[in-house]
């Protein structure tokens, strides 16, 4: 169906076959915490609350991974500093709540705009640097912020963090709270997924795809590569910062050094890589897989859990070079644009 609005045309694929799998996916995500809570209690020695917390962590990984995939496609570069923007969003929410009494409804747009603003300021790096230079620049950002949190511990609270951030939900019932947090976080993931999916299927998504493949070819197509990179980096940075906002209001505090750790970066990068190259749906699957595996290894292997987790993930990277999405794509892939018969005049 083509929708005409504001003097432009928008494509909207409405055939049920395009909706079947997303609907199944959404229902699964919505039913998952209830199923796990009632039927998987005690499996691998995991407590129900810990299991639900793991699923919320999966949603946080997905909240970061989804815009990060869009950023990777639209800039043609892999950022090693997504957790920097998580910290930017977290600190914005925590500082505004604590110092100025902002409610979560106000800190949400503030976190997004702060992330986007810093993203805009940094966006020229997507044009002027590539390869190891881009990696180093983006890798340095979280380290700088890390140092800053200690240097200005009066503001950022160093490893104590900023406590006293108002909680998003508080009913007094721990299980109920955590269940609601799960649904809030999954709603955020689904909203991000919807927008990301629409962007990737739009003409801008197509242009981003060309940039990702070959910037010089994109230029020869008449695509303003620099403009698309700046817009992509800015908006996705803002979107990643929203994950920080959620963390601050979910935990009631924000401690940058916890989230600026390289191990968190590795989990984010593994989420996007195991999801599959440029695959937003794959990111959701890998986020859930990694978060659950992390919880299982934590309960089963104690101090060795991180080592075991990363070894398992490394093996998976080796045997699934195209990630989880690659597995699905092999069996179920369809071209988005339907075939049309063309009759020449």
């Amino acid at each position, binding site marked *: 169906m083509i929708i005409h609005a504001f003097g432009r045309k928008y494509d909207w694929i409405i055939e049920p076959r395009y909706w079947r799998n997303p609907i199944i996916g959404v229902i699964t995500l919505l039913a998952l915490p209830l199923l796990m809570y009632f039927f998987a209690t005690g499996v691998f020695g995991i407590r129900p609350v810990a299991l639900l917390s793991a699923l919320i962590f999966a949603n946080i990984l997905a909240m970061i991974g989804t815009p990060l995939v869009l950023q990777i496609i639209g800039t043609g570069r892999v950022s090693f500093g997504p957790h920097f923007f998580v910290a930017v969003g977290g600190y914005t929410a925590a500082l505004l709540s604590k110092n100025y009494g902002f409610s979560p409804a106000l800190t949400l747009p503030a976190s997004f705009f702060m992330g986007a603003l810093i993203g805009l300021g940094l966006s020229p790096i997507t044009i002027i640097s590539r390869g190891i230079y881009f990696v180093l620049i983006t890798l340095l950002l979280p380290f700088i912020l890390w140092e800053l949190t200690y240097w200005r511990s009066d503001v950022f609270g160093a490893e104590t963090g900023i406590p006293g951030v108002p909680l998003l939900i508080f009913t007094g019932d721990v299980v109920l709270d955590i269940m609601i947090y799960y649904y809030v976080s999954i709603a955020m993931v689904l909203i991000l997924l919807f927008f990301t999916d629409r962007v990737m299927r739009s003409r801008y998504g197509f242009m981003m795809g060309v940039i990702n493949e070959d910037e010089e070819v994109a*230029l020869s197509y008449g695509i303003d590569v620099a403009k698309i990179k700046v817009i992509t980096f800015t908006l996705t940075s803002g979107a990643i910062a929203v994950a920080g906002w959620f963390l601050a209001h979910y935990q009631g505090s924000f401690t940058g050094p916890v989230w600026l750790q390289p191990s968190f970066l590795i989990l984010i990068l593994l989420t996007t890589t195991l999801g599959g190259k440029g695959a937003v749906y794959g990111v959701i699957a890998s986020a859930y897989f990694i978060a659950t595996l992390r919880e299982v290894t934590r309960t089963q292997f104690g101090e060795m859990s991180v080592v075991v987790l990363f070894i398992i993930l490394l093996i998976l990277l080796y045997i699934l070079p195209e990630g989880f999405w690659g597995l699905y794509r092999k069996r179920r892939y369809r071209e988005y644009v339907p075939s*049309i018969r063309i009759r020449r005049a």
Partner: protein
Amino acid sequence: MLEVSNLTKRFGGVIAVNEVSFEVEKGEIIGLIGPNGAGKSTLVNLISGFYLPDSGKIRFLGEDITKKKMHERAKMGIARTFQNPRLISNMTAIMNVMYAVLGSERGSKLSLVEAYGEAAYYLDIFDMLKKRDVLVADLPIYELRLLELARALALKPKILLIDEAMAGLNPAEAERVSKLINRIREEFDLTIIWIEHVLKIIMRSVERILVMHYGKLIADDTPEKVVRMPEVVEAYIGEEVV
């Protein structure tokens, strides 16, 4: 239509293009030849905006485009193909052309389905419609060349810069590509600058030849006259010019 004056491009101590000047009229088809390393591809890269010149001027349709970026020149109607086909290998043939339709000036006014339809039209011109759903990675070199031409044409260019469309093709395929280039020139009222190493074909296909040697333009005349010029013969010593 296109005026190139005193164009110079240096790479370190090497002068790849040295004070090159020429003009191209609308509808002309011009061959650009010269031995390896003569500066032909650099000249095309300068015209398309891939490189910016160290000195000199390029005017297109009366406008100075010397400092314009590559994507701005593409929007103005300067399209090019590459010496080694540069296509998106993990996409289908039609998606590659569709990208070009969407990137063109009119692309923003088209829906995706309309862009798909237009892409199919351009594939059909090159008899590639039946290959529309084939991954580029699975196409042979002949079809990659055709696909590059279809993609360039989808930008609705005013001038088309073709960089060695015959490389890697057998004589029969080269002949077919040559005929197609002449056909699209007539059908779409195109101006073409065509770099080529297969001299026998290009001499038959163009009205005017530019010869470059060590970055300099050493000849600019009809094919018949160019092959008799001593400086051209000297540049091609050891090779049969035609």
